[in-house]
């Protein structure tokens, strides 16, 4: 076990940090799952951080000049390079500390934040490079399962069957025709010390995982499920309910992979039917019972696979 992690007691309702490194007053939609998750992540990280944000909803809604929601140092350069920018920041801190140009004992967490598009698609190479090189940083992927910032186009994280503006259902289409890319598993394949999935519906779990990701030395990857009422056709007030449902239906399992070992952090013993999750969202409205059944089979199989991995 990683010593930094064994020492960590974890957050509880009683010891939540008061600080809000991400200030209110941003321009996210009501009920935005990304901004909720990001707020929690930032609370867990505190203020000794440097945030490297990819282009996307979170970047746009938090930084319309001359306003900013960021109370911590924050940089945005482009869409596909958050991990590369973070690599540079991390390397610079190391060099500056060695040269006596930054306080040696002041630990700064370098954090990259990107959407599913900025992570799974256009930014995958930069992410892989940074993970492989072993930079001491945390990568947070906020997965709302499409390119929301540009108007709900499909990404490789868009789930099978979902309707987006570039995966519209039609005479020859059921919506998204491919299965969701499993980015956490790709991260695991890099042999990094810490990978986790998290959900804003389980906020203490989310905060603990982000904090652990920061505590471990070396690269850490946290993949966070983030409902997007605007893109999914759901009610803003239902976002957290939906996030919980995604876990309870096994659609989005919560787990950690610490030094290659899998831990299911929320075992789903009495799963709800996937149909309940799908029916709650306009993006799945067109799905036939046959397709829903197919999705159910896939969800079950994926979960089974995770259970087996956690038993290894």
């Amino acid at each position: 076990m990683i010593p930094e992690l064994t020492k960590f007691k974890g957050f509880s309702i009683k010891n939540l940090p008061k600080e809000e490194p991400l200030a209110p007053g941003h321009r996210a939609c009501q009920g935005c799952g990304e901004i909720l998750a990001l707020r929690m992540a930032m609370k867990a990280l505190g203020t000794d951080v440097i945030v490297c944000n990819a282009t996307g909803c979170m970047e746009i809604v938090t930084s319309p000049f001359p306003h900013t929601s960021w109370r911590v140092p924050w940089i945005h350069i482009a869409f596909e390079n958050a991990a590369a920018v973070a690599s540079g920041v991390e390397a610079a801190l190391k060099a500056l500390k060695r040269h006596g140009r930054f306080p040696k004992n002041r630990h700064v967490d370098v954090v990259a934040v990107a959407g599913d598009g900025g992570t799974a698609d256009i930014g995958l190479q930069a992410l892989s490079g940074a993970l492989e090189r072993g930079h001491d940083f945390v990568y947070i992927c906020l997965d709302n399962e499409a390119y929301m910032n540009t108007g709900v186009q499909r990404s490789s994280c868009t789930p099978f069957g979902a309707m987006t503006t570039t995966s519209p259902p039609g005479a020859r289409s059921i919506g998204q025709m491919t299965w969701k890319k499993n980015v956490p598993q790709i991260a695991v394949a890099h042999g990094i010390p810490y990978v986790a999935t998290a959900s804003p519906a389980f906020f203490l779990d989310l905060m603990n995982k982000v904090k652990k990701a920061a505590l471990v030395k070396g690269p850490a990857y946290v993949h966070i499920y983030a409902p997007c009422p605007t893109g999914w056709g759901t009610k803003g007030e239902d976002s957290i309910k939906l996030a919980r449902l995604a876990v309870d239906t096994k659609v989005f399992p919560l787990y950690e992979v610490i030094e290659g070992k899998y831990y299911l952090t929320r075992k789903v013993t009495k799963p709800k039917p996937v149909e309940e999750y799908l029916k709650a969202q306009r993006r799945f409205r067109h799905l036939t019972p046959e397709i829903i059944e197919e999705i159910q089979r896939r969800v079950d199989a994926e979960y089974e696979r995770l259970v087996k991995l956690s038993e290894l």
Partner: protein
Amino acid sequence: MGKRVAKEVSIAIADAVKLARAEVIAAYPITPQTHIVEHLSELVANGELDAEYITVESEHSAISAALGAVATGARTFTSTSAQGLALMHEILFIAPALRLPVVMVVANRALSAPISIWNDHSDIMAERDIGWIQLWAENGQEAVDLVIQAFRIAEDRNVMFPTLINIDGFTLSHVIEPIELPDQEEVDAFLPPFKPKYKLDPRKPLTMGPVGVPEIYFEAKKAQDEAFKNTRRVILRVWKDWAKRFGREYNPVETYRTEDAEVVLLINGSQAETAMTAVDKMREQGKKVGLMRFRLWRPFPIQEFRKAVSKIPVLAVIDRALTPGGVGGPVGTEVRSALYNAARRPRVVNFIAGLGGRDVTVEDFEEMAERAAFYLKKRPKEAYEMIGVRES
């Protein structure tokens, strides 16, 4: 004073980066830049240069990581060529807008296709508008001097612009030349540590790279443009200081035997040396030929340039890149545009030569000078002529 030693130019450039005490290097290998980054890796590996070398997985990440590093306050270097520079394209524009003074050496090489590792200027000419300070070196000594100067210029608080130095791939990068490397103490006295006013530091949070709504975007770009033009003053000051300390002079436009010249050849980069031989030869024959090259290409030194050509009858601009379907080579087009409203201006003849590593010989330069002289009395009909290309 440093010693003069024979060195491969790429190795000397890496040594100059070491003398400048770069703290972070992020680079991806591409011929003919490789010797620079290989030697830097070596210097870091054996502890001669105390820097972080980030072995990025692409040039896109090289420049992205470099910007992250400068934004955090570390002196940062990168280097690339052709396809690599093209891959950086998107990010190159962001560096000056965020005022991130990274220094880069571009080993100039032809852009694909056909794929070619050999030298011309098509890579950098495609990047004229990125908003970086752009310099040209003619020989190894200049390359070394410019690299050290570039850090001082780029990081000056009145500048804070990324700066690049062009060196011709192979014809300069891979040749061995006698080069004087300044002593460490001399460089330290010339180049103070990088201390940016704004950086990513939790002790003083700031937001870098925000959204520019239509109400502010235009003003932001105007401010950038003005600040960029103003870098001129610092550049000239740094060169003055360099001349005082090291005895080597640098000017925005370098001229050679242009005083009474009827025809002046203009070519950037290392082939100006070959052109010099042609000029000397023709002068011996009594022909009034001179030579000129841009040292500073961005910001364009319009005053110095207009002054330098005001008395010249014919200027023969030799481009080493093509502007397909355009009205001349990139340098030719720009020069004509810079002169259009000038009170006194030469007739401009534009040649395209030496694409993709094609040799441009002394004889070629003589031919171009002769052809240009032909236009003392006549206007050129064509926007440009190609030299040294086989017709069959």
